[in-house]
């Protein structure tokens, strides 16, 4: 229930959205695509660790 991770992910999302707009307006479509991908990868890395410890908790609680 750590709210700061939530804000971190939302911040990255907004940042990528803005960067995308700026880059696409400046005509650099490929770089816009790159920033989207990097933003996505960073967010995924953050969430994957949360997913793994959730599954670990469920495994221990339900003895799966």
């Amino acid at each position: 229930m750590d709210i700061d991770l939530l804000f971190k992910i939302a911040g990255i999302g907004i940042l990528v959205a803005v960067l995308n707009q700026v880059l696409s307006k400046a005509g650099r479509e490929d770089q816009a695509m790159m920033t989207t991908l990097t933003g996505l990868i960073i967010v995924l890395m953050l969430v994957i660790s949360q997913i793994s410890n959730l599954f670990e908790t469920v495994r221990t609680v339900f003895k799966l």
Partner: protein
Amino acid sequence: MDIFKLLGFAVIATVLIVVIKEQRKEIALILSVFTAIAIIAYAMTQMSGVITMLESLIEKSGISKDFMLIIFKVIGIAYLVEFGKNICMDAGQSAIATKLEMAGKVMIVVLSVPLINALLSVIAGMV
């Protein structure tokens, strides 16, 4: 179970998701996945106390231990399948969601085979 923290977390996350949804759908999806995980992890920590109480209750009642393990496994599988199904539904992939649900049901049936055998043997014994 601090319901206000839970409620605040869910509402803030929903607002953030709506903000991000127009530009970056995929990050909005990941944000909703993360919120679901955080809320379930919080609920799961409360759940372990209930599970230990249930265990001691079942031991006292004399039901054999492996039936109880099967019951807990089935609950866990049902819980996780529900979790995955809702995420797939949110992303609009209802086909994947239904396949996941069917696979979950198959796994539950496979798990409950010994239970069915035990039940049949009890019935056969009575006849």
